[in-house]
């Protein structure tokens, strides 16, 4: 927006507002704020006069204190910030950065650590399980070998059984006619 007389009026109003809030004197009028040396750069000097005390200027320290207190409102009135609206010799009190109760990094760290510990536990447990399974498998193969030996050591050796060619049982063979032919 362009800087014109209306903006100057607003500025005077904001300074008067700041003075009223700060010293809680409701006597400061817009006419008490005087601007001088306005340049194209949009920079100027201003003074605040005190109409109650024989048209003297309010001391600079008071004006500074008033502006500092209401800096935020003045900035917002002009849609500017501390950087773009500069008052010479008035340093702004800086607001501290918002700090959450637990630092954020601690939360992230907790997440990362939980994942790692879960991974380690998983790997160790799976290692133990594989180890147990391997042990079990090896004992099973041992049992299998024993079984094979047992069957051989049984009364009738399997091979002996197999050698006998299949005997046809006469009882069943005769009933062949009873079965339906396919």
């Amino acid at each position: 927006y362009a800087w014109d007389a209306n903006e100057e009026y607003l500025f005077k109003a904001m300074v008067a507002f700041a003075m009223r809030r700060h010293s809680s004197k409701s006597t400061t009028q817009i006419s008490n704020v005087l601007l001088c040396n306005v340049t194209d750069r949009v920079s100027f000097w201003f003074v605040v006069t005190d109409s109650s005390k024989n048209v003297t200027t309010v001391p600079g320290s008071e004006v500074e204190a008033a502006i500092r207190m209401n800096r935020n409102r003045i900035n917002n009135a002009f849609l500017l910030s501390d950087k773009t609206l500069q008052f010479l010799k008035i340093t702004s009190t800086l607001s501290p950065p918002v700090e959450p109760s637990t630092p954020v990094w601690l939360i992230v760290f907790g997440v990362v650590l939980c994942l790692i510990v879960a991974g380690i536990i998983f790997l160790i447990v799976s290692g133990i399980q594989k180890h147990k399974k391997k042990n079990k498998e090896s004992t099973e193969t041992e049992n299998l070998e024993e079984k094979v030996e047992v069957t051989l050591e049984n009364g009738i050796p399997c091979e002996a059984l197999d050698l006998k060619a299949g005997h046809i049982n006469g009882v069943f063979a005769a009933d062949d006619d009873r079965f339906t032919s396919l």
Partner: protein
Amino acid sequence: LSATPETPKEDGRPKWDNKFQYILSCIGFAVGLGNVWRFPYLCQIHGGGAFLIPYFIALLFEGIPLLHLELALGQCLRKGSIGAWNTISPYLGGVGVGSWMVSVLVSLYYNTVLTWVMWYFINSFQEPLPWSVCPLNENRTGFNEECYESTAVNYFWYRKTLNITPDIAESGTFQWWLILCLAACWAIVYLCTIRGIETTGKAIYVTAIFPYLVLTIFLIQGLTLPGATEGLTYLFTPNLNTLKNPRVWLDAATQIFFSLSLAFGGLIAFASYNPTKNDCEKDAVTVAIVNSMTSLYASIPVFSVLGFKATTAYWDCLDRNIINIINEFDLPEESIMRQNYTSWISFLNSSYPEKIAGLKLKSCDLQEFLDQSVSGTGLAFIVFTQAIILMPGSQAWAILFFIMLFSLGLSSMFGNIEGVFTPLLELQIIPKSAPKELLSGIICLISFLIALCFTLGSGSYWIDIFDRYAGSVPLLVIAFFEVIGVVYIYKIKRFSEDVEWMTGRKLNLFWQITWRFISPLLLLIVFMAFVTLQMQKPPSYTAWNPKYEDFPMKEEKVYPPWVQAICVLLAALPCVCVPLVALFHLVKRKRRSKEPSLVPPEVSSCQGANS
């Protein structure tokens, strides 16, 4: 029955799932943080594109031959570093012990660097990034003084991360946040190396490939940033005059050597899990070329971002001057822009010279900003983090960047840990019935406890010492003895027969020449030049001292004598193993046989070990 859940070969030795895993592990070991933060710096200070000439010469005559030697050795003998060198000759067992020791020392401090990376990573999830704003001082009227005088990025690194002491003799206190991150880092290393190559082989797919993805993303983003082209032209403009300086050749040779992670024993360990009939020659050439290409590829985004940062700093400088001039002369806004700044300055200087002089304008020179070269941790944690703040969406870039650094470092850690783990496993420090997980757990726990020293206030000074002394000179010595040992004690003829048996074709003349003469000679020259350069001035370091008069410049200090003694110890201990073990065996032999014999004991051949 062995308790190892890995699928064993006939001799019970674990093996890689596939060839790609092996190559990727070697590449991951070689490609580390140095490729990102040391190579671009060297390129920059040594004449840009001209540096590539000594670099590739060193690669050809030093890097690839030594790499081939180590891979062939490990594959042939199928043992870790200590076992392999003991097999070649008991007199050379010291070479293996030396490698093992260097791997231990480097693992200790390398993981602390990863701790810093992790700390930055977990701090990247905040808005705004904690290194972008200065904290306020007590009465909230201004910023913290130390932060204000240096920069917010410097403050976060030196105070909030390291909490650095002004002198190495002052140890300071333990930084609990670093201890937490260190524990997490060692837990990650344990998680990945818990069963040796069975687990690292799976992890390497992620940690070795992911950095390339991120580098590509940064490449694309970096090239779109303003000022990227300035950075790149600055990096690659060759200045052939620098080649006359022998320092450049020395830096190229040492960079290739350390970049390929030779003489750590890790490569021997990796190769020992290979089947013997494997083309190690092709592997060596592949790994070396990929490593160098990665260095080049990484320097492009790094320099785009550095160019962007320099340009932004230059614009800030100009803008500040412009504001001052406009305020002084009450000119309307936007009358002076960056483009017509110089013409305005000359006009104002001619018309109102006293006023201009009174303003004390800082001279803004883009070249000066580009010349500010940093390497190492300064590049990653100060320069790059500052550049990230300026990019839109800084959190995402910071997270990506630090995960990439972490993966790069982690894949190198695998190699280091493997160089420690495999020899210990073969020496059977723990009983055979105990699971592998126990040994890796013990290694990680002991390393974590020792590395707690690096979390003190003076920790980063100690890491610099370890990096400069334990991770440099001993490696050169060990590599020299490796080549001499294989070529002259094991005999090149026998070795070339072994390699021929493994690769299936006759050993190229190139390898014969480089192994016999060129590489040992180069190593000797590099070693002597390196030591001479170190001896030229008393070892000193730069300390961050807020009370220093030239703060924020770092204060140059000399190491106290007890620290210098430790430096010498660190450099000498692995080297001294080589003659000590040889002497030990010589004495043993002399005691056993009445007359001393100079014939070395029976040397086994790799074909004999496997036929």
